[in-house]
């Protein structure tokens, strides 16, 4: 124990010395040190109503995720380290995260023309359809590349990127053949800078192309697998005044893997979005079509780890708790999606807009399967070791995966009151999205009102009331939060989510085979109290209470949040 305390004091002393040094010295001479850290810890309690027993907790009643980043910068040079600890990881995070140590270390030298990074880096080519390395703390997601990256800017408007390395896989160090190697390049050309004649043109055009190749040895006893898998994409960005259009097409050669169940089919995808806006009015439309585009640096791995590419879901990210109950996650084996959003500001001093105006947002997204047909009579769709199936480019299938039609209105009523009202109709294909085969689609209607009342210059109350209505899954919910804020330092909140299911608490459905399923739910409350303190960039959040079971999604990657009861603390800071 003594050893650990000494060690921690040592780490602390180094950090302290660094920050003091950086503060005391002029940045031009000795460089700048900056950093950040966060700690999320939870104390788990038994809760017989929620069905959480001592066995579930299994002695690990306290869990913690934490990280610390330090970045040093001097002129064109910068370097950094990242430390992480999961002791053990919070419930719902991948258990393979358990451990502690320095996960990232990197150094970078960058002049106007050349920019070199060695060590761990994050990068994205185009919209990420063939390559995106990034991290998302709240999900425990990090697919950073350990290797080298070079970015060249030989002339104004031209960017050439090259990357080479292996991806992070929890705490497992790279060793020969334990996962693949990723390498690739990207070219980005901003035409208006390259051709002097276009310099003053109001029409702006960017062209780009990227290529990624993964090498992984074929050690499979049954199949002969491609050891080098290449994926490429081409893209453009066009804008003219308030008009904007971007499109990327991506292709991947045959890549039998655990996600597509080892079929030898090529993959392809198209992602296009367009928008037009002028003051007070905006319109955006996007479409996506993908087929067999799951791409990982280890073909045998499923789940969220080791993804090389990123396929964004075409659906709105909801931030109110009940609206976010049924979030969509991209189906990499094939989906066709369309999304439209309209933003309109009713002008000030109009009849509807009142003194301050009023904002309206309409949102619609619709996602379905692509049309897959069998190769021949003797092969089923997606059969391992075959070409899998046939599909036409941009084909649309019968199954609906997800739909969301919603409206959100925000209005400042007077000096004291602000109101946000939203309503969403959501269709959620639980069998596909969560892999619970046989479960019926969820049709849910959610409404939210969010009222802020500022009663003194820096004192305000916020009251949120929402309801989710559905005949499937766990039935109906009602939720309310009352929050008191003393800006910018303190906040206190009390909230409850009540799963009142329906009158008799029974959810019934008949599946395809005519079998009747009946589940009786206990009507449960999920009360929570919370308090927060913020000073500058340091924020301390405490909460106590029940957490409902759910899915947390950020950028289309999701993790399950199990139900729990207990005391939670978050400390976050940066300098």
């Amino acid at each position: 124990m003594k050893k650990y305390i000494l060690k921690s004091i040592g780490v602390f002393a180094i950090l302290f010395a660094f920050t003091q040094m950086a503060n005391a010295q002029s940045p031009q001479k000795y460089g700048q040190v900056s950093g950040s850290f966060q700690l999320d810890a939870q104390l788990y309690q038994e809760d017989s109503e929620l069905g959480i027993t001592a066995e579930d907790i299994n002695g690990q009643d306290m869990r913690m995720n934490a990280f610390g980043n330090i970045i040093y910068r001097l002129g064109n040079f910068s370097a950094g380290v990242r430390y992480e600890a999961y002791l053990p990881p919070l419930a719902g995070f991948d258990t393979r995260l358990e451990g502690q140590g320095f996960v990232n270390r990197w150094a970078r030298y960058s002049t106007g023309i050349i920019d070199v990074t060695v060590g761990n880096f994050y990068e994205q080519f185009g919209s990420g359809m063939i390559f995106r390395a990034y991290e998302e703390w709240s999900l425990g997601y990090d697919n950073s590349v350990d290797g080298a990256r070079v970015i060249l800017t030989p002339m104004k408007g031209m960017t050439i990127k090259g990357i080479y390395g292996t991806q992070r896989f929890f705490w497992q160090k790279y060793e020969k053949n334990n996962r693949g190697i990723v390498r690739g390049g990207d070219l980005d050309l901003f035409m208006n800078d390259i051709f002097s004649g276009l310099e003053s043109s109001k029409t702006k055009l960017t062209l780009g192309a990227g290529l990624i190749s993964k090498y992984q040895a074929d050690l499979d006893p049954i199949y002969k697998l491609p050891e080098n898998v290449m994926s490429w994409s081409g893209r453009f960005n066009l804008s003219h005044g308030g008009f904007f259009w971007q499109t990327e097409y991506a292709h991947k050669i045959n890549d039998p893997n655990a996600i597509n169940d080892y079929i030898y089919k090529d993959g392809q995808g198209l992602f296009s979005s367009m928008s037009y806006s002028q003051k007070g009015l905006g319109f955006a439309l996007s479409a996506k079509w993908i087929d067999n585009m799951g791409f990982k640096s280890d073909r045998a791995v499923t789940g969220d780890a080791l993804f090389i590419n990123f396929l964004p879901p075409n659906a709105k990210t909801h931030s109110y708790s009940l609206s976010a109950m049924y979030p969509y996650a991209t189906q990499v084996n094939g989906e066709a999606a369309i999304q439209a959003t309209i933003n309109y500001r009713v002008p000030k001093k109009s009849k509807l807009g009142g003194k301050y105006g009023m904002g309206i947002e309409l949102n619609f997204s619709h996602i379905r399967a692509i049309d897959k047909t069998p190769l021949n009579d003797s092969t089923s769709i997606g059969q391992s070791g075959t070409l899998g199936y046939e599909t036409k480019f941009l084909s649309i299938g019968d199954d609906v995966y997800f739909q969301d039609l919603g409206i959100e209105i925000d209005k400042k009523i007077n000096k004291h009151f602000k109101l946000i009202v939203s309503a969403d109709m959501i269709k959620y294909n639980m069998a596909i999205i969560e892999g619970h085969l046989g479960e019926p689609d969820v049709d849910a209607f959610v409404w939210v009102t969010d009222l802020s009342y500022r009663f003194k210059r820096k004192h305000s109350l916020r009251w949120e009331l929402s309801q989710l209505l559905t005949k499937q899954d766990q039935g109906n919910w009602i939720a309310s939060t009352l929050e008191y804020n003393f800006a910018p330092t303190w906040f206190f909140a009390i909230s409850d989510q009540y799963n009142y299911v329906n009158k008799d608490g029974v959810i019934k459905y008949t599946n395809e085979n005519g079998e009747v399923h009946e589940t009786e739910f206990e009507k449960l409350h999920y009360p929570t109290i919370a308090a927060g303190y913020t000073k500058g960039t340091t924020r301390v959040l405490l909460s106590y209470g029940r957490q409902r079971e759910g899915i947390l999604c950020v950028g289309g990657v999701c993790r399950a949040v199990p139900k729990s009861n207990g005391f939670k603390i978050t400390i976050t800071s940066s300098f």
Partner: protein
Amino acid sequence: MKRLSIVLALILFTGVLFAQDHSGKTLPEVAVKTITGESFNTADIDNDGKPIIVSFWALWCHPCIKELTTIADVYEDWQEETGVKLYAISIDDARSTAKVGPLVNGKGWEYEVLLDQNGDFKRAMNVNMIPHTFVLDGDKNIVWQHTSFAEGAELDLIEIVEKVANGEDISGH
């Protein structure tokens, strides 16, 4: 025990951070994108020697949008009084890039909006949670920063900006 010692080190460290004064840090050089998709170097964030606000936000972050909407109501006055310019850095990924422009225009925001699709600028600025707002002085030194937003927090922000514009000391904040 390991866990306890790490918690201890971090808590000690928090104490240091609370006690931090404002050091003259500058903006890192990171490639981001403009709202129309062109490349933009964050070292080019500039306001001719007048104060700058850099605010990280995203479409899915209600407090962020509240903060930027609240400031939008008084932005004209702020600009008149202090000459301040606000850079709103969206950390939305490729999923929502095309929706940022319509939202900004739909809300009638007059800010400089940049897209940090892969979070490179966010990481270089050590932003853990959003909203996270920075104030830069005329020499583009980061002199103040704050996370979270609640009604009334904009009053502190403008107070800082006014002091920075007048060259006053803000070490008490």
